[in-house]
């Protein structure tokens, strides 16, 4: 039943305005695939193209080998969960879930069995005879999920389904969705702008910007080995430093603008001596060292966040890529030997095994084995 989705040079245009200029993606059968990006990046547009609510102006989208460009939405056999849930307010919970099955002219007893099963899976059996307006947000969300899954769709499409819930419920529903999806084993495309949600729920994530996919990879890879500077700064925080490549004995090293030399053993072969690069260091990839064994900076400000102390740092201006919102260092309070004070000068050493090195224009990662599509 479940299918793989092949998107081949898909184009979306509104008049002269191109939203998606030609997008390629392959979504595997049964996987939980997330489209992540800032608002206006085209992720919902792409989802609605798969659903059939947006026309496709070029290229193809195929379920397995079957091109669906010209198949109307109601014949694509999709299940969709909407941001607003879109529960039919004039039907009871049970009638909402039955709706799709009735259209498929399913025999009564089989329908009853299926509806009972799914109500049980999403845990709303006790509310089945209520009208939706008397349900909480989380319960409505479960109805929407049950209604979409019960028809055994080829793909399940979700458009920011958790954005209207409060923080606690969001986390709860996140695992519920994940669990149900694995149980049914259905290809799922999930749209969100919430990176934490994406990292925690997905098999793979595609990060989008201006209608172009910046990287497709597992959550772990997306965070630890981002393909470009956009991904590295959009997912979590990254501090960006200017640096130059230099030969270092048999290997290579990057030299920061204050002269600190950091040997690297995982730079790709295309990296040559004298190349200008950007080194991206996450706040947790610094460690405090004695003077001379790292980058020197001043503590500008600090914020206590329970597990962590976050320090805001001041570096010499020429060391940094300009226009960064902040330069941060997170100190894990579970292992901290000494807390730092505001205005203190400190030496921080980036962890060479963890940092990422990008081309000077920020477009590509220069480490070995980092690919655009994983």
């Amino acid at each position, binding site marked *: 039943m479940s299918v793989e989705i092949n998107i081949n040079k898909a184009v979306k245009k509104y008049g002269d305005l191109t939203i998606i200029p030609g997008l390629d993606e392959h979504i595997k059968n049964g996987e939980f695939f997330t489209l992540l990006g800032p608002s206006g990046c085209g992720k919902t547009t792409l989802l609605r193209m798969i659903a059939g609510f947006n026309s496709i102006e070029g290229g193809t989208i195929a379920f397995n080998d079957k091109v669906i460009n010209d198949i109307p939405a*109601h014949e694509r056999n999709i299940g969709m969960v909407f941001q*607003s849930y879109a529960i039919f307010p004039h039907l009871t919970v049970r009638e909402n879930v039955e709706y799709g099955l009735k259209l498929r002219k399913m025999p009564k007893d089989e329908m009853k069995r299926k509806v009972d099963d799914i109500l049980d899976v999403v845990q709303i059996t006790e509310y089945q005879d209520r009208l939706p307006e008397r349900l909480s947000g989380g319960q409505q969300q479960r109805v929407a999920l049950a209604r979409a899954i019960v028809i055994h769709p080829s793909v399940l499409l979700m458009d920011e389904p958790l954005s209207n819930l409060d923080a606690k419920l969001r986390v709860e529903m996140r695992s519920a969705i994940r669990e149900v999806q694995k149980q049914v084993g259905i290809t799922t495309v999930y749209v969100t702008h919430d990176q934490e949600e994406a990292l925690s729920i997905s098999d793979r994530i595609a990060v989008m910007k201006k209608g172009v996919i910046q990287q497709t990879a597992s959550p772990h890879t997306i965070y630890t080995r981002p393909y470009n500077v956009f991904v590295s700064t959009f997912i979590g925080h990254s501090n960006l430093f200017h640096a130059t490549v230099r030969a270092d004995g048999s290997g290579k090293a990057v030299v920061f603008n204050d002269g600190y030399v950091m040997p690297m053993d995982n730079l790709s072969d295309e990296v040559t001596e004298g190349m200008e690069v950007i080194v991206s260091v996450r706040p947790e990839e610094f460690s405090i060292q004695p003077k001379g064994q790292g980058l020197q900076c001043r503590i500008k400000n600090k914020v206590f966040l329970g597990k962590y102390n976050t320090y805001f740092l001041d570096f010499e201006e020429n060391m940094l890529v300009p226009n960064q919102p902040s330069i941060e260092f997170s100190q894990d309070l579970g292992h901290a030997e000494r807390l730092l004070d505001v205005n203190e000068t400190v030496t921080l050493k980036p962890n060479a095994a963890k940092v990422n090195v990008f081309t000077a224009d920020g477009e590509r990662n220069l480490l070995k084995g980092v690919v655009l599509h994983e």
Partner: protein
Amino acid sequence: MNKKLIRWDFWTGVTLLAIVVFGLFLIYPLFSLFITAFQDPETGAFTMGHFAHFFERKYYYQSMINSFSVTTCVTVLAIVIGTILAYFMSMYKVRGRNMVEICIIISLLSPPFIGAYSWILIGGRSGILTQWLQNTFGLEFPSIYGFSGILLVLTLKLYPFIYLYVSGALKNIDSALIEAAESLGCSGIRKVFTVIVPLITPTILAGALMVFMNAMADFGTPMLIGEGFNVMPVMIYSEFINEVGDQANFAAAMAAIMVFITSVIFLLQKYIVNRKSFTMSSLRPIQKGELHGIRNILMHAGIYMLVSLSLIPQLVVIYTSFLKTRGAIFVDGYSLDSYRTIFSSLGSAIQNTYMFSTGAMVMIIFLGMTVAYLTTRRKSWLTEVIDTLTMFPYIIPGSVLGITLLLAFNDEPLLLSGTAFIIIISLVIRRLPYTLRSSSAILYQISPSLEEASISLGASPLKTFFKITAVMMLPGVMSGAILSWITAINELSSSVILFTGATKTMSVAIYTEVIRASYGTAAALSTILTITTITAMVIFFKVSGRKDVTL
């Protein structure tokens, strides 16, 4: 592919149907009216003669001045009464306010000419009050006929429009605005005129347009009570009914002048309102205060007096329907003779009324829902055209619409005059714009993702429309349709022109009975009409779960 073709066909069909209905029964007749207005009846050549004729003779152009003056006075008076009433009803606790509101709505929905007719029964030459004053005190009751009579009847009939509009607006004023004014040192009457009145001015203007259009177009009232005081709708009607010589062309010219006037007023109002429009939504509506002592008594006395004054006509009519009559004269004692007479000789009129209105209502519901769907969800240049077309009936007085339909469909191959169909169509054309507007408002409240959800579950767009969208729209559309039905059973100005013996409706029958001075039967018919109206209103309140009416 087959399915796709059917889907394409349905919405195209609705688009075509809408265009045919408005094109054939509104634009084409209006167009032929204008052509007729510029035509010489003998040669068919272009002439401005009819217009010249109109502006040359005082007898004619005086009717335009009369129409204008009486309509303006009615509008001003209705604004003053309606606004003051709404202000007190919204700001202060009024005993029996629900009853008061229902009475106000009843007087709005009752046929206008019943007011005229019962005021004649009360204060006319041989009216109850006139005779009583004459016999006991030898006093002369001031004449109820002419300008003052029309003013009285139409004001009492139309101030509820302003009342309903303004009450709605007052509900939307956030009490913080009033408190802000007070905190800045503005209170009492100054607060009313510097804060409240400006806030409700756009609403008053919207209501004023309704009042103006209704008063301008009203045919029954001036016909019955106007006597020598000629106004345009009456003039057009009598010129048109006089089938001598070039009168049809002349009547057409007058109708064209009238449409011109109403269009100018319509556009002027839109222009002013657009410049001043803003939206209000109230988090905390104004709390009703309490008046004490003499002020409280005065307020209650005022409100109750106004409401009784507007209800008196209804009560008088019901009372007289049970009086014994001999011909045109009421004699002592009570009887059901009047009812017997109408059921034996005018039964078909009652039947016609219900049939035509119900037929119109069904068409209005269908067209209202589908066309509103087209113009809000499937926008294209064609639906824009339909949207514009549906604005036209606002500016066309009922009698003018009647004349245009009659002129356009009086000949083969489109010989429709005298049929029930043409009356139903005229009702549909006049009410559809209101239903369309409210249906679109309802549709904007329904999230498109509900429809997409249905489609994603495998329902075709057409099936989705009927299973989801239409079902959700229905309660709102139904309650609007009941109001349309009420207006339809009380409709006179276009049916009086379009009717023939076989297609007589109750309101037409009442009118002809009154003209024949057969007051007993007219009263019995009016009573049936009033009771039907009240019953339908009760159903409306049940269906909509609302306590107010917007027309």
